[in-house]
């Protein structure tokens, strides 16, 4: 049997630890509640920009005869990353002045998901029009990102 003195000390330490965790938890929750600023928005938009350019690179390689299974599988992994970034962007509570940027980014990145899906369905490489669209989308996201980082 653990001596009573030790048990009491254990309770005191547990209470202190609980208090620390509570304060930390509340602090973290409050921090997450604050409206997203330009830095917060720039992260998922930057990810989408990178994913767009990566899709373009993948397509370019597909036209040059890369292993089809690899192209399909990599596109699948990319599609999941794109979805994650879009979800993150959608979940941010943007301050009023950034709301327009956020919606623009979400809207413009939709074709990326479609294109990645096309790869996944085995339709690689993409037709010229879609390929050009992907590059255009990526460039647009890049300039959106640029306005936020200024």
């Amino acid at each position, binding site marked *: 049997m653990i001596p009573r003195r030790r048990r009491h000390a254990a309770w005191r330490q547990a209470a202190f630890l609980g208090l620390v965790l509570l304060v930390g938890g509340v602090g973290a929750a409050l921090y997450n509640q604050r409206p997203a600023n330009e*830095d*917060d928005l720039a992260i998922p938009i930057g*990810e989408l920009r990178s994913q767009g350019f*990566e899709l373009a690179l993948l397509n370019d*390689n597909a036209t040059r005869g*890369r292993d089809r299974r690899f192209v399909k599988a*990599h596109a699948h*992994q*990319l599609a999941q990353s794109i979805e994650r970034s879009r979800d993150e962007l959608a979940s941010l509570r943007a301050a009023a002045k950034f709301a327009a940027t956020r919606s623009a980014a979400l809207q413009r990145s939709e074709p990326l998901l479609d294109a990645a899906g096309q790869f996944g369905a085995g339709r690689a490489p993409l037709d010229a029009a879609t390929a050009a669209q992907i590059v255009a989308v990526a460039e647009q996201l*890049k300039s959106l990102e640029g306005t936020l980082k200024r």
Partner: protein
Amino acid sequence: MGKFAEVFLGILTAMGGFVEIGELTFTLNAGRRFEYALLWIVLLGTVGIMVYCEMAGRIAAVKHQAVFSLIRERDGFSAGLLTLVAASLVNVLTCAAEVGGVALLWQLLSGWPYRALLLAALVFFVVVVWSTPFEWIERIFGLGGLLMIVFMVLAVRLEPDWASVAAGFAPSLPRPAGGRDTLMYTFYGVALLSSIMLPYETYFYAAGGIEDRWKPSDVTLNRVVVIVGFSLGALLSVSLVLIGAEFFKPRSLDPALPGTAALAAADSFGNIGLYVALLGMFFAFAGAAIETALSAAYNLAQFAGWPWGLDKRPRDASRFALAWIAVFVLATVVVMTGIDPISVVEYSIVFSVVVLPLSYFPVLAVARDRGIMGPYANGPLANALGWFYLVLITVAALAALPLFVATHAGQG
């Protein structure tokens, strides 16, 4: 086996085992964001890991004692327990990232579903470690990792401006672009340093020395393997920075998947380059998964006084065997939750920086103690370097968490 062959193999194994998923990601992105400006960190980190692995290996050869029993003896029970818990957490997270990385690579080669491949990876790792002798594990994964040389060839092929590359080896701060850039640069510097000096490498290296039954006469072998092998491994890291700068930066691409690195090789070398890169990464990540799981088991067994070692049959080191199996299972569970392996590795690298001073201090303390090491104790150079790096990693450890938070985990 002849000494020459043993040294040669040791060097190749050290080289092939140098890079794992965290370091791959950080080096590529460091090059992508800062071009060659962080190359001096690669150099700094490489010398650091050489210094500490050499000391730990020397201790293993002379005292036949591995790092964690040193930690308990020198730091005492409570501090040792704290280090054990922290190091175990880091090991499990790193193992999880490597297992996830392996499943991602297998998916790229086979097209099969990710979660099924995670389970397959778990079975693969448990069967391999259960049935393969230690030297063969070291050799297969170390030598297989040498396929990563494709990235060295790619770096040269991309024709970097060698003068700028050389300039990158001198310490510098980023162009005065203001507070945010400097913050990111510092974070990347700390993270890169940490990913090169990951503690599991030292624990595993020393435990390996004991498994290989090193004697005091092996002290020179230890030194040669560490210096030459890690230098060659560092060349690989440098190549990855170059690829980040020359391939990914012009394309505005932030590499975030193993397949992205393979795509760079494929772009220049076609399907051959693709397969070599994928296979090289497989051996590198799988080797790291095995090393981190074994490292966690070594640490626990050494701290608790259990029999340990792959040289023993599992029944003769039963809790040790259960420990490494449990680590693989836990690691697989972590990535099964769907968390992205690259995110896991970012967390593990930052937290491992915090563990570094606790893990490295006892190594230095014992290696320089003439009463324990006799004529094999640290000379003035080893002492100077040992202290320098201890101070450096302590500063890095203090800075790591604030930087992590301030830069949103290195993303912005």
